[in-house]
């Protein structure tokens, strides 16, 4: 005799710590198995694209900082400045480009550390969170002494950076690199070899390569699914074309692969920072750009590799001091779309593990 069952509709969020912000998941369950997941987004929508049409190019730097992905403000500033510079044909000086690269990689590490900590918490490993915060605090200190801000820096300018690095900053940054490379093996001890962590992540939430491409996934999520693609390598910006670094790629496509990819990316970021610190030249840090810059008419698409993936800005200028239209191609938006594919067929307990592994920031998803 067949047991009569019916599907259960479960609401997770929007106010729930494990959804990493205000995200609602409508989960259809058959017993303990997930039949379907529909993410419901938009709770943090602030219409940044509309607001950017009413601000000058300089003011928009302050806006993209907090309006987009707040955990990687430098990456947002970078993509905005890059788009504007390309359209206005402004070249940032050499030193500024090195400083930007260092800052971007520090930001990548700090963003990945937050992810690592929260991913640990999602799976019940609380120590990793505290340790990740401890390491991140050092990066925050570095940011603070160079830019004055810890989370929102407003440091990049169109055609350079605002201020030069303070005295002794490069030494402190090098010290941090050594310190961080000492600490990284601890995470291996704590998480990578942890049988509980392995059981919760290995083979869970697999995203095949073809699906990842078709669904528009990018960044570590796509690289863990076997897509060897990194904007820093494919379309180098700043000084990435003269730096040696590897792009970690895994073919498993599960949560553990995404974890390993991000862990390796942090090592590569340190490698990039060390090379930059060795070769950073002296000189100008900012090209002469008017405060109310009028960008020539035209359209441009600038893409960068943010900690979450392929972050792009499609900028349309009509020759005014404010942009006519800005489209932000948010990486987390497309990555979150692939969530349904990853989750289908897994248990309800895996929802948190899979959601945590794709590293979403709701401010980036909703914009």
């Amino acid at each position, binding site marked *: 005799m067949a047991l009569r069952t019916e599907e259960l509709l479960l609401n997770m969020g929007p106010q729930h710590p494990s959804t990493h912000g205000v995200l609602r998941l409508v989960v259809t369950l058959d017993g303990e*198995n997930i039949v379907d997941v529909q993410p419901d987004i938009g709770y943090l929508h602030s219409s940044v694209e509309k607001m950017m049409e009413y*601000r*000058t190019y*300089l*003011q*928009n*730097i*302050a*806006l993209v*900082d*907090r309006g987009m992905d707040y955990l990687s403000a430098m990456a947002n500033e970078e993509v905005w400045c890059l788009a504007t510079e390309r359209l206005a044909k402004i070249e940032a000086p050499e030193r500024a480009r090195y400083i930007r690269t260092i800052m971007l990689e520090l930001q990548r590490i700090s963003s990945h550390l937050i992810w690592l900590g929260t991913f640990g918490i999602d799976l019940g490993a609380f*120590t990793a969170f505290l*340790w990740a915060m*401890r390491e991140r*605090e*050092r990066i925050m*200190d570095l940011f*603070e*002494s*160079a*830019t*004055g*801000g810890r989370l*929102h820096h*407003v440091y990049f300018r169109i055609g350079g950076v*605002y*201020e030069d690095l*303070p005295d002794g900053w490069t030494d*402190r940054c090098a*010290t*941090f690199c050594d310190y961080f490379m000492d600490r990284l093996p*601890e995470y291996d*001890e*704590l998480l990578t*070899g*942890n*049988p*509980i962590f*392995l*059981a*919760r992540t*290995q*083979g*869970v939430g697999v995203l095949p390569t073809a699906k990842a491409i078709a669904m528009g996934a990018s960044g570590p999520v796509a690289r863990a699914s076997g897509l060897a693609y990194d904007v820093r390598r494919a379309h180098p910006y700043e000084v990435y074309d003269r730096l040696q670094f590897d792009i970690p790629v895994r073919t498993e496509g599960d949560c553990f692969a995404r974890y390993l990819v991000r862990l390796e990316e942090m090592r590569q970021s340190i490698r990039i920072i060390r090379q930059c610190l060795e070769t950073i030249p002296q000189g100008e840090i900012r090209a002469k750009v008017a*405060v109310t810059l009028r960008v020539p008419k035209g359209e441009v698409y600038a893409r960068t590799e943010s900690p979450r993936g392929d972050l792009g800005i499609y900028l349309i200028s009509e020759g005014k001091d404010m942009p006519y239209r800005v489209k932000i191609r948010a990486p987390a938006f497309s990555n979150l779309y692939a969530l349904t594919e990853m989750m289908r*067929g*897994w*248990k309800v*307990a*895996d929802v948190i593990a899979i959601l945590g592994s794709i590293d979403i920031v709701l401010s980036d998803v909703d914009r």
Partner: protein
Amino acid sequence: MNTSIQPNGKKSLAEQAWAGAVGLVVGLKATLRTMFERKVTVSYPVQKVNVSPRWHGLLALPIDQETDNDKCIICFQCERVCPDRCIHIEATGKAKDRLLTRFDIEMDKCCYCGLCVEVCPTEAIVFVPHYEASTYNRANLLYDLDDLHRAAPKEPLGTGVVKVRRTR
């Protein structure tokens, strides 16, 4: 249907238990090592950390010792560049005789971007390294000319005694 707990499905129960025990010991070893390291936290209201000189704290119009007045030349650049439009300036008189009658900053709107500090031609408006601007009343966050001259938070909350220097 997939099952989630199956990565070491081929192992026997004893092997799994052994792996779990090893993992526990390794993890505990790492945490134990950290236990004997120096503390990285401070007990905040009593101890405070110094912020960097570039810290984006409160805005101020510090008094210049020579002229006994602020350096503002009433050019309205900060008012214009502010993305949140939180600076309000009014002045009387013409040309050289202009007098500042109102310089209000709504600190509750301020996003601490520092663009006003950047565009100021005389470095009249600066950041001061205060970070305890929170108050119980939102009206306290409207800083007028006197408050900006004083360059201190209106309602200081913390009463810390020990300043901790950042060692790194």
